[in-house]
């Protein structure tokens, strides 16, 4: 099946794309650039870097801007999916949704209107299992934003590894944070994974409040 991926550049959408690629053909990535840092639908930090990720995946990228206003942003998402359907003949959409019924419901509704399949391969997945899978499949993922108690700027730029998973497990016990950041506790960015033809390298980084701006090559 020809599939388009709703792609933020973070660990979930990239890992979902990887799982989908095992038995299907990925034909494009779809990224929404939201002006709203607190969008209910779209991941925002480092989203501008998805272009580089698409390049190393040899996949075309559909980019659509959205103001990120609740519900109105869905029209922008629909516009992007229609473009993917017309241009790349996609038969379905892949998302990295894990627990968000809010996101999943809205994407299901849009795809239903457009007669497209929806695939959520990480749906309801155990958070620690998800993080361990990333390591098992050689995903190189860094933290690019933090937004919850228990996290400080020392987390920015760190790679997800076994030690970090252990720390996240402890933070989960202490503060109840979601270890895979499903509640927006932190945001991630993928530098390398089996879908990438070439590893992305951080050549410069700058911490701005609770986010990190990375320069890649």
């Amino acid at each position, binding site marked *: 099946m020809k599939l388009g991926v709703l792609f933020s550049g973070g660990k979930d959408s990239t890992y979902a794309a990887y*799982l989908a690629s*095992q038995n299907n053909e990925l034909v494009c990535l779809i990224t929404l650039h939201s002006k709203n840092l607190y969008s209910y639908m779209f991941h925002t930090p480092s989203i501008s870097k998805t272009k580089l990720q698409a390049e190393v995946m040899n996949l075309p990228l559909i980019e659509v801007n959205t103001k990120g206003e609740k519900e109105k942003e869905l029209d922008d998402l629909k516009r992007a999916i229609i473009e993917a359907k017309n241009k790349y003949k996609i038969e379905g959409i892949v998302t990295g949704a894990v627990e968000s*019924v809010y996101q999943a*419901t809205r994407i*299901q509704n849009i795809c*239903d209107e457009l007669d497209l*399949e929806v*695939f959520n391969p990480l749906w*309801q997945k155990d958070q620690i299992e998800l993080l361990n899978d990333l390591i098992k499949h050689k995903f190189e993922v860094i933290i690019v934003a933090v937004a919850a108690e228990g996290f400080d700027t020392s987390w920015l730029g760190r790679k997800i590894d076994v030690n970090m998973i252990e720390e996240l497990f402890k933070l989960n016990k202490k503060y109840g944070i979601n270890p895979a950041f499903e509640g927006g506790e932190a945001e991630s960015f993928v530098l390398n994974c089996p879908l990438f033809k070439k590893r992305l390298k951080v050549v410069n980084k700058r911490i701005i409040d609770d986010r990190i701006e990375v320069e890649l090559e």
Partner: protein
Amino acid sequence: MIIVISVCKEKLHELEFVKPIIDIVKSCKVVHYSKLKNKDLFDAEKVIICGTSLKDNEFLKYLDKFSWLKIFDKPVLGICAGMQIIGLVFGGKLKQKKEIGYFKENLNGFFGLNEVEVYHLHGNYVEFTKEFRVYNKGIPQAVSYGNIYGVLFHPEVRQKKLIKRFIYHKYPTALRWGS
């Protein structure tokens, strides 16, 4: 052994509709309905028939693969597509109604669930024959008939306890849990 039956046409959908059930059940054997053998049913203590995606109705062409339900005497739980299969095998009628997202339902004590929020993802439902008990008002969301149970919603989202109660009690009974 618990047998978990997949009805997904696409392998990728099993991660979404079958794996969450496996994660709750933990120890089980997973079989696609097209490969189900008599021995699987003979060895089974209980059976769960999972759901599939909104657009996937391929299983409706192969209802004959589920005719064993009529003589099977061990506990069976059908989820969404699984519930539709149960209803159709027993002579129910397929109807269309699309519901996506969280909905409030009163299940009147079905496996201990009363006023609950459930996750719907279906384009069809079944109008059941009279031998089935329907626990809610409106289109059937929770039903039972002897050893057979069905839910139209997806309990793997937010109502995992329903699956646990079905699995961990030796002789599950829809109403033994009280309110």
